[in-house]
């Protein structure tokens, strides 16, 4: 009895983690590929959701389309090309590097470079200034005070 209960509890915990129900009878290999690929694709209706996570009707249709194309033997790259041809780069969560997106990709680097340059020049300028303490120590009366001879 105890074992049966434990088994039931286990079975329930598995179903709780199963997430989205897959249509019965789909090829598990294709489903796995679809889920990985759809994580990197944007749902065009709820624009902050991935195609994998969205319940929008269009997202379901697009998943069906991707599934069909995978069944026809198309590889991931061809499927992505198919979607980009119709919906543009916007469908990709990771936009490609091309003239239009140069600023997007390199902008942060440029700002980092500006920051580093500013930091470096400030440090250099500070180093060029004579050490205030050294300056004081060379003066006799200051040296006397610092050495504790002051009255």
């Amino acid at each position, binding site marked *: 009895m105890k074992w049966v209960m434990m088994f039931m509890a286990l079975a329930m915990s598995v179903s709780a983690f199963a997430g989205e129900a897959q249509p019965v009878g789909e090829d598990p290999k294709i489903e796995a590929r679809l889920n990985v690929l759809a994580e990197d694709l944007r749902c065009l209706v709820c624009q902050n959701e991935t195609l994998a996570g969205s319940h929008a009707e269009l997202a379901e249709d697009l998943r069906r389309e991707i599934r069909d194309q995978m069944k026809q033997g198309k590889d991931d790259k061809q499927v992505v090309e198919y979607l980009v041809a119709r919906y543009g780069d*916007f469908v990709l969560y990771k936009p490609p590097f091309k003239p239009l997106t140069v600023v997007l990709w390199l902008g942060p680097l440029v700002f980092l470079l500006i920051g580093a340059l500013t930091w470096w020049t400030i440090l250099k300028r500070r180093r060029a200034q004579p050490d205030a303490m050294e300056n004081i120590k060379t003066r006799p009366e200051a040296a006397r005070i610092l050495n504790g001879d002051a009255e």
Partner: protein
Amino acid sequence: MNKRLIMLLPLAVFVVLALFLGKGLFLNPREVPSPFIGRPAPQFALAEVGNPARSFSPKEMLGKVWMLNVWAPWCVSCRQEHGVLMQLKDQGVVIVGLNWKDKDREAAELMARMGTPYVINLEDLDGRVGIDYGVTGTPETFLIDKQGIIRYKQTGPINAEVWTEKLEPRMKEMAK
């Protein structure tokens, strides 16, 4: 003097960034640039709503300037657009309807009741042709020229303002 200018640089950068981001707030995220502009309209063969024997293909429209209007009976903003489209039809604008994912098959009844602005209304029941045109929602309208090239895409309903400012000038240019 020079030093003071450099001190102002971060402020200048901030202002420029704020202007760009501020502009971004007022852009419509639904208006995704269509990769089809300047490219041939995808080919398809679809039956007319309520008349499965009649098959339509965009090839038939070569030599004409026309509008492909993606709509659906369940789409509220398509109803708002309907009146404008009826007026356009009376002005002689050629509009082909793409009845997108009308699972409840309401289009024929709706058209009979409210009138049809379309020269032909096509049945895209599973939405595949819509996907081929990169449709994300209804209504969307494509302007297609005499060579069958998509020249403009309107996302969202057509009202009098959209027509006179965006669509009409382009249709006139394409008709030349």
